[in-house]
């Protein structure tokens, strides 16, 4: 039976697909977007987050850790992340909420059972959204889950970067009611620079899903200094115009909240902008885009 690693199960998610949804955050992502807001979703393995502001330097973690990951030196708490096996002993020992284990294995049964706890609230439109990370990095688990949920009559959305083998999408296709398909950049060079890979596979998969009749919403993070450009907005419109099944384009304003998470993981983010992009700016672009495409454009 396939197991998956999830780093969060977020009930009452209201921004990731229609209605009230339970988000399953899959751990692990093949891309390295400079502005990533879920850095805990990058590594496929469980890891420890450290909230320095809560640490009292009590030393409990240092004592229980078999790998000697934690060292208390003076008034500093150092983590040797390379030796960490994410056994979770330290997080259990910490009474102050300073340590958190991110990423736990779930069987499909467990995950489905958790999703069913909110059946009362899904109604006609809500359901479950597979997101991450990149759910397609654990495509077998994703497929089992999606099929089970589908069989239970629960709507399933999937947010994906599009960067995965075609076969994975072919397997998932019958069980996904709506794809939230990320388009992060429309300029190949910039895509390579800030996302870490080229656009070809992503665009091919998008084309494939569209031709297969999948329902698609394009989710487009807009990041100042990277893709906040007229030609990008125009290209997004052209893309939507070219495809048949794009229901909506969602513009998602950059926010710096991921920086807080990256600090807890000792991860350096290449893009360190602490200023959120104002929604109003995107509303101006939304109005322009509505001249360029018939597909509804929404600012999230």
């Amino acid at each position: 039976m396939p197991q998956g690693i999830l780093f969060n199960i977020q009930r009452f998610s209201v921004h990731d697909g229609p209605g009230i949804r339970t988000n399953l955050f899959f751990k692990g992502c093949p891309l390295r977007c400079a502005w990533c807001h879920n850095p805990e979703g990058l590594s496929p393995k469980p890891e420890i987050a450290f909230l320095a502001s809560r640490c009292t330097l009590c030393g409990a973690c240092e004592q229980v850790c078999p790998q000697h990951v934690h060292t208390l030196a003076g008034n500093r708490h150092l983590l040797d992340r390379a030796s960490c096996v994410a056994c979770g002993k330290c997080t259990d020992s910490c009474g102050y909420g300073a340590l958190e284990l991110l990423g736990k294995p779930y069987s499909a049964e467990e995950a489905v059972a958790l999703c069913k706890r909110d059946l009362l609230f899904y109604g006609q439109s809500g359901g479950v959204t597979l997101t991450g990370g990149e759910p397609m990095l654990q495509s077998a688990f994703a497929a089992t889950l999606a099929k089970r949920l589908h069989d239970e009559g629960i709507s399933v959305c999937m947010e994906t970067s599009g960067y995965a083998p075609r076969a994975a999408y072919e397997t998932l296709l019958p069980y996904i009611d709506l794809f939230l398909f990320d388009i992060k950049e429309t300029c190949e060079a910039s895509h390579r620079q800030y996302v870490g890979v080229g656009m070809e596979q992503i665009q091919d998969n998008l084309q494939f899903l569209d031709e297969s009749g999948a329902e698609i919403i394009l989710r487009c993070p807009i990041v100042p200094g990277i893709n906040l450009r007229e030609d990008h907005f125009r290209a997004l419109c052209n893309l939507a115009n070219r495809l048949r099944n794009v229901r909506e384009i969602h513009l998602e304003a950059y926010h710096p909240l991921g920086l807080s998470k990256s600090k807890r993981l000792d991860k350096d983010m290449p893009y360190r902008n602490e200023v959120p992009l104002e929604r109003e700016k995107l509303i101006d672009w939304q109005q322009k885009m509505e001249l360029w495409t018939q597909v509804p454009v929404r600012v999230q």
Partner: protein
Amino acid sequence: MRFTIKDEPFAVGYMTSQSDLTAMKIADGFLMEAEELPLSIHEEWKLAGKNIPGKDALGLQGVYFQYGTGIVVQPEILRKKAEEHPECASEYLAILRYFDGKGTQERVLAADTLEENLQRNGQAWYGGHWGGHCNIDFGLFVSEGTDALRAKADRCAFDHPDKKEWYEAVKKSLDAMDVFGARYRELAMTELSVCAPEKKRIYQRIADALCVVPKKPAYDFFSAVQSFLLIYSFDGVDSPGSFDQYMGKYYDEADPLERTEILEALWLYFHDARAWNLCIGGSDEHWMDKTNALSYAILDIAAKTYYNTPNLTLRWHRNTSDDFLRAAAKSIATGTGLPSLYNDEAVCPALEKQGIPPEDSHLYAMNGCNQIDIQGKSHMGLEDGEVCLLKCLEYALFNGMDLVTGLQTSIHTGNAATFATFDEVFSAFEKQVRYAVSQVVRMANTSQRIFAESAPNPLRSALLAGCLESGRDYTAGGALYNHGQILTEGLADTIDSLMCIKHFVFDTKELSLPKLLNMLKNDFAEEEGWRLRLERYPVKFGNDIEEVDALAGKVQRFFFTEMTRYRTWRDPENGIYGGGLSTFQRTARYGRMAGASANGRHASDVLLADSIGATPGKDRNGPTAALCSALQYDHSLATSGFVMQLKFEKRMFNTPEGIENFIQLVKGYFRGGGQMLSVNVLDAEELKDAKLHPEKHENLIVRVGGYSDYFTHLEPGLQDNIIARTIQDV
């Protein structure tokens, strides 16, 4: 004694009454008030209603009657008046001598035994002391008029010749309403002759209406509202109840512009006078929707004025249109928290369990904060008492001793240090709860008797079915239904504490009971590490975790079922005590008087769970999980408000999708059997507080597309971003 003073009309009317019957003395007090209270008609009210202290010349009274507190005596005011008016001093002092010690609530407190007094002061629990809210039949008053009601009293008196004088008292209190109306009519005529031409319309309308009402039936929307306001204000500004139901037909026929003006004027009165509970929507016994145009108009006006009064409640059921909830969402989004949402599908069956037939259970309305009554037919909103369950647990752990006062206040249930199993702890807790309930009921029943003896209310009795028919005052069980309601506080704190004891003492055995008791006694002095572990132990109520939710259900079922074993003084046969959970400022007082608890809560921390939801800040899995936990309680045992509070960011209400999600959430909870939801908008102040005291706000989740995080985990600068965004939204 002959009185010349005019500023103590109730006392003078009462004292100079020719009758020995208390109800008649009170009716004489009402009549003299109607004859002598200073009147004024405020231009902005555009309606005649009793003046409001502070707003105008309604002076302070040393003795007055209030529906909930009975006769109130304020000796210091009488003494002051005697000093300021030496020529009338003997009159004020005569009143003082006559009424000294005769205040209804004083009598109730004086009846406490020493033991009961200790418990009341220890804020463990209390019973009685308050005569209660009530939804009287305003519709009957407006549509029939006092002439018809007096005729009814005469007819009923025929069957009860021994109660003749009581019926006379009822009629006299109705006369008082006529006198009150006639004096306002004269005043309107006087104003009419002197006012500016553009104001004439207002006074003319009042004078015209008062030619007819309250003696005769109202004939249009204005006369209906005017008639309603006369009795509503005279009676003491309690709870209008299902206003849309009894006013709907007049509203439908009124001129659209004029009716809006009248409604706005009335709402201003409600606001100025701090009206209690007004209810809209709902179903009849066949689940047909009773929502009407006035129900919607009331939501409109609530959204437009964002007054926090009247306490507006909306009744939902299977045939309620989503449009009605959408209109409600608009008002809720203003941040007033109004309307509260009630579920007929849960409330009606709970009432039917108490023997109220469906045709009446569907007439329920709320009064006060969240008490449930059958409008015009019951007297159940007494808030007969309250039990702080957390204090019961404290007594169970300390063998009946109060940790804060150090006194032996409750019964001995064994030395907890020797308890070998969790069941023994729970059993001691049950014994303490059982004792608490028996005490509260005894106190409440004494209080009910004293209220019936010293504060009968013949005016209200005219407007509650059963009273005239039986010849019994509503305080003495005259109404058709006389169930009791006992409320509770700190439910989740109690459950979380029990859970921590179970886990750390008996399951993992990391902590011995003697050590825990010591820590509680010393308020965790030098045990901050343990306190934090208890506080942060994640298996807390409100997170949809089966083990703790099952324990919660067990506690609530036990407590609420225990109450149903008792009967009220007002109806020893059918008056069943039931339970509810309301949110009151009293919660803070209970917190202050409770010792440290096993969920890591410091002694006297005022922050107790004030709804059926989690201990403040501990519902970390979002609203659906919190609601799933709340559904593990048996809502059909709750016959008073069983309040579940939720808070959302304002931005959720800013988009149609957000509002649809909100509606889905409400309907999900209600379909799952939830009784009541109170929804507030998160304000920036709470976020600022969360920055300073993260441990109290661990439930705040920041949600953006594809992203979520706990607010308290964010870096300070990013927290400021969210605060700024919240200010902008509100």
